[in-house]
């Protein structure tokens, strides 16, 4: 007879998610998610703040990937106003967004290795994440919630000494990630724990609306950065990592290779960055109309649907968060699996509950 176990909210590994598991022995038969512990009503708050004031707030929708979220929102505002950021600002945005993506992916890798009690990789990833945070601090003035990308451009230019330090850190990281490869991805025990666990086929992944690295791990070749290019991505050269197995190991591996690609993008952007202004004037009000934009964040595709009403406050803002879409994949996969695989599947999707609840 199955027992209903509340896996979460007071569990070492659950985060802010509660999964009600129907467990028979050591096998989970059915899963029901209970989210909303971090629901802050960000979509409602948007109607009460001016469009500029909302930038630091939307960054809180996903603390670990804040610049990408801000970029998604700012792009929607700019598209509605018909403003385009200057060329140099586009490159700076790419740099901030990619640093933010590395930060997010390293954290995801840390948490996934934690699910097996593998603290070594957790701390190594966190150590090297600190270096990225230092770079972001140099560039934006804050370590986690940057508030760097604003409608019309970016707030500051590259600081003195940033290029040298960035190349130093990125060269180090480029070498260092192969240590991760040896320690984590070639570790037989980690392979045993993650290979063949939570297999999501291509068809299922597409139908469930799974997005980001989790989608690409299932063999779907889709990346907003390449297929619907924004900012300076069409001028930069990078590969979209696609694997075909669709299990937890592959999801982690896609993220790992994306770190390398992000390093490549930042290096190019730092080399190619043109001179020029970094911010243009924007109108004080949002015009009437509506717009839907999407960007690729570390967790997947972020869609922002923005309705303006001729005031300086949005009439309606919808955040279609990547983790919210991946949650469907998680619930779909947490059926007929051993109890020990629940945290592995959960963290292989890199679901952040701040982002699901909003």
């Amino acid at each position, binding site marked *: 007879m199955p027992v209903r176990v509340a896996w979460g909210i007071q569990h070492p590994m659950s985060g802010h998610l509660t999964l009600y598991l129907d467990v028979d022995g050591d096998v989970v038969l059915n899963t029901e998610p209970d989210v909303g512990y971090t629901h802050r009503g960000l979509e409602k708050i948007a109607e009460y*703040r001016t469009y500029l*004031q909302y930038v630091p707030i939307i960054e809180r929708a996903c603390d670990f990937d804040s610049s990408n979220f801000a970029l998604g929102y700012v792009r929607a505002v700019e598209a509605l106003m018909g403003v385009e950021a200057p060329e140099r600002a586009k490159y700076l945005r790419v740099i901030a967004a990619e640093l933010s993506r590395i930060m997010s992916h390293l954290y995801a890798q840390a948490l996934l290795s934690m699910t097996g009690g593998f603290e070594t990789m957790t701390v190594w990833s966190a150590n090297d994440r600190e270096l990225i945070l230092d770079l972001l601090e140099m560039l934006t*003035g804050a370590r986690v*919630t940057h508030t760097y990308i604003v409608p019309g451009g970016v*707030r500051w230019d590259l*600081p003195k000494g940033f290029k040298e330090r960035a190349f130093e850190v990125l060269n180090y990281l480029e070498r260092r990630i*192969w*240590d991760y490869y*040896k*320690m984590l991805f070639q570790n037989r025990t980690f392979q045993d724990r993650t290979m063949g666990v939570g297999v999501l086929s291509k068809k299922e992944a597409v139908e469930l609306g799974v997005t980001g690295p989790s989608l690409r791990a299932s063999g779907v070749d889709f990346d907003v950065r390449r297929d619907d290019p924004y900012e300076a991505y069409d001028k930069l050269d990078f590969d979209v990592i696609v694997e075909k197995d669709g299990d937890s190991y592959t999801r982690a591996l896609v993220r790992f290779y994306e770190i390398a690609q992000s390093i490549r993008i930042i290096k190019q952007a730092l080399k190619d960055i043109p001179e020029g202004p970094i911010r243009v004037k924007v109108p004080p009000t949002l015009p009437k109309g509506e717009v839907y934009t999407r960007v690729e964040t570390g967790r997947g595709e972020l869609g922002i649907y923005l309705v303006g009403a001729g005031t300086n406050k949005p009439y309606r803002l919808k955040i279609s968060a990547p983790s919210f879409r991946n949650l469907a994949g998680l619930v779909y996969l947490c059926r007929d699996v051993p109890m020990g695989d629940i945290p592995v599947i959960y963290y292989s999707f890199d679901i952040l509950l701040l982002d699901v609840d909003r």
Partner: protein
Amino acid sequence: MSSYIKPLYMAWLHAFKRTFTVKYPYEVLKPADRYRGRIELNMDRCIGCGVCSYVCPNKAITLVEHEGRKYPQFDYGRCCFCGFCVDHCPRAALKHTHEYELASYNKEDLVFSPSKAAEPPKPFERRVVTVRKLDSKLGPGHG
């Protein structure tokens, strides 16, 4: 079999490498030049216009009466350190300092009245590590 042994070798290898830790209470990292810490108010320049209070996303700034004039008062229990007030100040009366150790035992201590906000930042009393050193011996090709 080697995929079981290699991590063991890696683990023993790293046991003798230099550590990453910054011993925080004893030494602190130097914040970047642009670091957004506590906001310092220049009372001579401030004209009490209230733009900072208007632009603040979290309503952390209120204008209060001080020596017969209006000055901003900062509530760091609400502040998100976005720095919009500093950006928008028409007289450049506000400025970020590098002070970030603002924790206190009660909420009231986090409200910085204009005179308290005008105080210069406390200097670090501990050893300051300027920048994190990168270990060139980490990564493949080095062991």
